[in-house]
């Protein structure tokens, strides 16, 4: 008799995980500095959903938006806690120079270093719009902000990235 509710919650969480873990890991990989961090972020986002099943809204798009916001918030918490902005940029630059001398790897490390120096919210806007091709309106819905805020973040991020990439490529 009591098994109905936990079973329902487990089923729902399993469906949530199966539907969104790939997309969430891809986003986390673009928001974080390395693969391990991305995996930890995805797992922590799903663990939050497991601990607070009632906080996850019903429906595919609302629950996707909830997961994306949770992931971005986790990135922001980690960003604040570790102060990794400059450390990540430096480590990525060193890694690219020492282990991956190819042009593609250098370009990838350069972009990661530039992205890592943006704030998590701005980085999420850039990643969603520029790398995942999500429209501004959809980015606003996913992040729970106004469209004008997304446009403002994009404008500021392009300006910052342009100067950062120019600086990194020197």
């Amino acid at each position, binding site marked *: 008799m009591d098994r109905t509710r*936990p079973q329902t*919650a*487990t089923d729902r*969480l*399993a469906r949530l*995980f*199966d539907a969104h*873990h*790939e997309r969430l*890991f*891809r986003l986390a*990989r*673009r928001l974080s500095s390395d*693969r391990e961090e991305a*995996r930890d972020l*995805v*797992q922590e986002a*799903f*663990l939050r*959903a*497991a*601990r607070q*099943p009632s906080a996850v809204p019903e429906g595919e798009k609302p629950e996707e938006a909830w997961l994306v916001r949770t992931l971005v918030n986790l990135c922001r918490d980690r960003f604040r806690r570790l102060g990794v902005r400059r450390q990540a940029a430096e480590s990525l630059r060193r890694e690219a120079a020492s282990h991956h001398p190819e042009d*593609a790897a250098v*370009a*990838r*490390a*350069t*972009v*990661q270093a530039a*992205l890592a120096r943006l704030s998590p919210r701005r980085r999420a806007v*850039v990643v969603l719009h*520029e*790398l995942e091709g999500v429209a501004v309106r959809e980015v606003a819905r996913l992040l729970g902000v106004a469209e004008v805020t997304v446009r403002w973040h994009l404008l500021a991020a*392009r300006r910052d*990235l*342009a100067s950062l*990439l*120019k600086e990194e490529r020197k």
Partner: protein
Amino acid sequence: MNDDRLSQLLREGDPAAQDAGLNPDEIHTMRRTVLTAIPESRSRLGWLPLAAGIAGVIVLALLMARAPWRQPPAAPPAAPQVAAVITPAPAPAVAPAPEPAKRSRPSHRRAVRAPKALPARPEALMTVASLPEKPEPATREIRFSTSGGTRVIWQMPVNDSR
């Protein structure tokens, strides 16, 4: 650097472009970790309200059992004992208290000691005895003690015509 060039640079350096994503083992491990977190959180939160409710009921029952208004009512106070003594005029103003009144006085109320005070003041008796030309009428004295231990002495003149 214009926006198109920036977008091209970002796509070329996409961190997820070369990443194949989570492998099946990682997915399986993460899925199991996430799904097993549900019963833990439910069981952890499930017994807390129950335990708190039981503890609250026990505390409430103890408080109710030991409440002062739940104790049996005290025995009704004894009726005040009244002793009426009619004494002649030259007699001492205050006679020794009767024995029953003494017994009824509580031990913690020993302030009133009227019967013993009179022998220690002989000048008062001398003053009363030094008025022979005007004999005082007989008085009626009523003594009683209240339930709280207070002793009351009333002296009233006795009307002979009655």
